[in-house]
């Protein structure tokens, strides 16, 4: 019922003058709730998957299957005392994290969750999404540098280094997708995949996209910004508890955004035989998120210069090859 978009469409073309605004507002609230619920579920899923990979079962004591564990963590973190380090730059440090979270949720708002309606239904929505998405490492840099902690500063420098090496392959892959679908509009790309998913046309593209998305989301083999064993917690070192909840939410929202994007660009977002559109999208996104978390449980962290070398020497040529294939196909 909720997943199907029929109620939304009926609300939209209802006669009252405010229907347009009301529809958008309802859609935004719906996406916000969806993000919160999925974040919560992803958090729980991640702890369970990592635990299963390590021959143990994750949180079980709190709530039915440890479901309430995350709720307890979040509320406890919110209820802890907050603290601004003396050397930190007050304004930047407090603003960086909430801003990042807002940006991440706004990005999900742009994505075509529902076929008939969405904010990102204009010509070059794909370019806009990636332009905004490349802001997150900058915010991490601001948060890290402004927290006045030496470890955080190294973490933030690494984030900028990684941004440089992973934006380019991604942009090449998007270009190849645009060529295939003959338009940069997200909705059109998904629509164009009705016959055949793009994964079969561009397997290399998906491979490059998956790795660079891992780097963007600072997931496991590349989590240099928050390298636990070396930089204590990277740019999160001086972040006190309440804003750490934001960081957790940010982490899972970005993972959700990454897996949604991959589901749309390569696996045909809402095209699915029986279930309503959104359900298909969520299923695909969760499968991809599952793989992202599995990588976290098994991969060793790479060194910063290896990460850059992988970015420039390996992913870039692959992306170019992918571009050529896109021309041929």
């Amino acid at each position, binding site marked *: 019922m909720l997943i199907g978009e029929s109620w939304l469409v009926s609300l939209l073309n209802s006669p009252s003058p405010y229907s347009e605004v009301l529809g958008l507002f309802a859609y935004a609230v719906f996406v916000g709730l969806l993000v919160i619920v999925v974040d919560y579920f992803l958090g729980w899923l991640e702890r369970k998957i*990592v635990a299963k*990979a*390590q*021959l*143990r079962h994750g949180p079980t004591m709190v709530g039915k299957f440890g479901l309430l564990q995350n709720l307890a963590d979040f509320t406890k973190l919110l209820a802890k005392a907050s603290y601004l380090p003396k050397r930190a730059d007050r304004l930047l440090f407090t603003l960086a994290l909430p801003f990042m979270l807002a940006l991440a949720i706004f990005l999900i708002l742009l994505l075509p969750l529902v076929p008939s309606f969405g904010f990102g239904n204009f010509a070059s929505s794909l370019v806009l999404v990636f332009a905004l998405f490349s802001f997150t490492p900058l915010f991490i840099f601001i948060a890290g540098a402004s927290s006045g902690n*030496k*470890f955080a*500063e*190294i973490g933030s420098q690494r984030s900028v280094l990684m941004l440089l090496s992973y934006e380019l392959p991604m942009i090449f892959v998007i270009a190849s997708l645009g060529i295939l679908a003959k338009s940069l509009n997200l909705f059109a790309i998904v629509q164009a995949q009705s016959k055949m998913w793009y994964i079969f046309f561009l397997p290399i593209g998906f491979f490059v996209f998956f790795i660079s998305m891992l780097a963007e989301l600072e997931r*496991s*083999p590349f*989590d240099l910004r928050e*390298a*636990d*064993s*070396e930089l*204590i917690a990277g740019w999160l070192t001086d972040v006190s508890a309440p804003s750490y909840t934001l960081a957790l939410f940010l982490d899972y929202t970005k993972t959700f955004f990454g897996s949604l994007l991959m589901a749309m660009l390569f696996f045909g977002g809402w095209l699915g035989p029986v279930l309503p559109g959104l359900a298909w999208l969520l299923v695909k996104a969760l499968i991809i998120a599952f793989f992202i978390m599995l990588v*976290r*449980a*098994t*991969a*060793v*962290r*790479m*060194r*910063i*210069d*290896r990460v850059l070398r992988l970015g420039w020497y390996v992913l870039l040529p692959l992306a170019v090859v992918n571009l050529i294939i896109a021309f041929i196909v």
Partner: protein
Amino acid sequence: MGQALQGDGLTTKINVGPIHPSTHGVLRLVVELDGDEIVNVEPHIGFLHRGVEKLMETRNYMQDLPYVEKLDYVAPEAYSEAYISAVESALGVEVKERAQYLRVVLLELQRIASHLLWLGTFLNDLGHFFTVFMWAFADRDKILRLLQEHAGARMFYVNMRLGGLNRDVPPGFEEEVLSVLGDIEKRIPMYESYLEKNEIFMERTKGIGAISSHRAIELGVTGPVLRASGVNFDIRSSKSYYVYDKLNFKPQVVSSGDVFARYKVRMLEMKESIRLVREAIRHMPPGDAVGMPIRLIIPAPKNKEVRVYRETPRGELLIYMVAGQQGPYRVSFRSPSFINLAALPEIAKGAHYADLFAILGSLDLVIPDVDR
């Protein structure tokens, strides 16, 4: 912050503080970084110094046994056995035949457990989110349960007596040891294939922190770190105490000398220890293995100065003891982690900042063993 520009000499001083996830124990490293490259590492120790050697002088032989085990708590069996053989040679007591075999079995089990613990924490330092840490600890737990059956405690088993052990092994101990070693033997190739095929792991360990064999001897490093740089020296073969010569023990040597070589030496040593335990159990003669407890009134120690050389999982342990009437007049330990840590500045010079923790992990340090 004085952040460095490339090569202009302006370096950042990073204080890898005493409480840090990857220093095993409490060790402060003042790292001088030029960009991402390490210019100089200065270890500050002494946070866990508790004057064991002074304390041992004020107590008699039997009371010192718990102290010795807490020196290197990852392989307590090796230290307590070395100390007891020091007291035995001071008082001129012969170790029973069966007890020699049993001591070798317990020592080698402890070596496997210590290497497994090292494997888990080493991969944690490389950023591997606790997965192999869990697998290695699950295996280590099986061995700890075995040792607990014999001695009653998980970590500190005060089970050595003059000339033997405090009690013989419970019946069925040998079959259990063989079965546990059976599944650990299946696990080691799994670890090796999992790690050596993992391309990122090879990148993080190959060619990092390499020292030549001449340099290793010069720095005085010991144990797996020495054997990883191609020096074929192992106390168990050169001194061949107890029954190691009967079990034809062969030291494991790898020649490349870098972090990967140290990992490889330890994996080979684990396999060698499993073979040793199986041999020891097969050749174990019947008879009693119970030793004499150290009573308060003991005969005057025959020879004053005693030197005992042993091979602990971390390296070569030398106990130099001047025997007093009731307790040791002076005990001096040559702890392997002390000298391996002293070599760290030499090994880590010029490496990347992230490699510092790979090198630190590969040296397998136990900080209380450094500070004593």
